[in-house]
């Protein structure tokens, strides 16, 4: 089965240890995710490709308990929808990124918990291609 990332240049793939691809401003050092066309802090055009740390801490989180409308493209229906967690994950002192969490149970999510980037199945297309996406998974302590 072919595994394909949902978009190019969002995370390194295929990879044993995938990383999110961010941007770093050559002028002021601001870090974004994904790579932006210009710096949101100082406005300098052209940020540099910058790989982000794989581990971080959960700064805040919620759950997505209802099926989003289009353009959500998981192929799920009201009957098959699986709720997912969404967090704002702080990666070192560089940036916070919005990301799905592999855990959607509020009882198992804690502020400040350590999480790690994983690549997970998102949807399987009619031709058998598996579309994969990034998420953060709680690190077992």
């Amino acid at each position, binding site marked *: 089965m072919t595994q394909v990332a*949902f*978009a190019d240049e*969002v995370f390194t793939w295929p990879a044993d240890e995938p990383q999110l691809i*961010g941007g770093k401003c050559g002028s002021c050092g*601001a870090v*974004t*995710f*994904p790579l932006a066309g210009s710096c*949101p*802090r100082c406005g300098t055009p052209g940020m540099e490709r910058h790989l982000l740390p794989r581990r971080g801490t959960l*700064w*805040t*989180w*919620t*759950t*997505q*308990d*209802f099926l*989003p*409308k*289009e*353009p*959500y*493209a*998981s192929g799920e229906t009201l009957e098959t929808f699986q709720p*997912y967690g*969404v*967090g*704002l994950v*702080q990666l070192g*002192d*560089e*940036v*916070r*990124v*919005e990301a*799905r969490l592999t855990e959607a149970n*509020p009882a198992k999510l804690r*502020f400040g918990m350590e999480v790690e980037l994983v690549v997970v199945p*998102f949807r399987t297309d009619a031709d058998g291609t598996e579309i994969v*996406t990034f998420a953060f998974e709680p690190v077992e302590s």
Partner: protein
Amino acid sequence: MEDVAIIGVGLHPFGRFGPKSAIEMGADAIRAALQDGGVRWQDVQFAFGGSFEVDNPDAVVGQLGLTGIPFMDVYNGCATAATALQLTADAIRAGKYEIGVAVGMDKHDPGAFTSDPVDYGAPAWYGEMGYFLTTKFFGMKINRYMHDHGISHRTLARVAAKGFRNGALNPNAFRRKPVPEDDILNSRMLNYPLTQYMFCAPNEGAAAAVLCRADLAERYTSKPIYLRATALRTRRYGAHEVHSTWAAVESDDAPTVYASRAAYEEAGIGPEDVDVIQLQDTDAGAEVIHMAENGFCAHGAQEALIADGATEIGGPLPINTDGGLIANGEPVGASGLRQVHELVRQLRGEAGDRQVQGTPRVGYAQLYGAPGTAAVTILST
């Protein structure tokens, strides 16, 4: 700079109205505002119209009379109606016109808003991967806020219950039935910690105001309400905002904080001078956070204030006296002028069962929405 007065306000009820178009609702709201102010449409020199769904709010002229006036259309997210109001006021302040109309109208499909994330400055995959939801942003923001400032789930339910209770007193509201706090807490979880009854619903409606140069106001009304401040701000680097794939580690205040400070400065007053308040309650948590972001209390003080009933119509900090977004829903283009309509009614002493105590002199309205835009309006007698 000329001072500006509001001499008429009008509202088309918020709710669901079958085949009736947003343009028709907008025309109804303007007619009501003209009648309220004793102004003829033929005397209106210009207008600003706001909408999310309607490309050309100016089409209301086809229903009101084709007088040829300049009519400018604006869209600015949840701050659309406050933007229309500010631009109308600015044109009078600058001396270009003497009398004008600000109107907002919308007609949304049921359910959470959707759109193309690219139009909000986010990548296309942001929607495809299930991130392009304002509701999950509000869930994340209030969840962290509750953790940092000791706000309970019960407080969120109290805020929503107050919204429904006030809505029951408002004949123009969408939801007019009180809902017990436990039913709110036990309704379906949408985005933890926010349940279904803690969220407002996109719906339909329109609102309008007639503004004029302040020295002309007494020709039209014995109770002019003066526009003391209109401030609009976008997000700064460091603010965590709606529809963003990332946030900076170094933090800055939300745009509401900056809009609020600017408005107080322009009006020359402080939060202690405000008698009646309208805040953006997209969800119950947003009302809690916005109480502090607008200077009405310290972060965390909401827990006790709300438990003590401070934000009720009879309390010292009456908030969302008409039921707010939770009871009225949110036709985006009209929402801010619905707030202004309520404040004008309150300041004139015309709010009926919802009337706040004493003789309110100062009203305050705040809007917040995607992609990190806030507006504050301050009115006084």
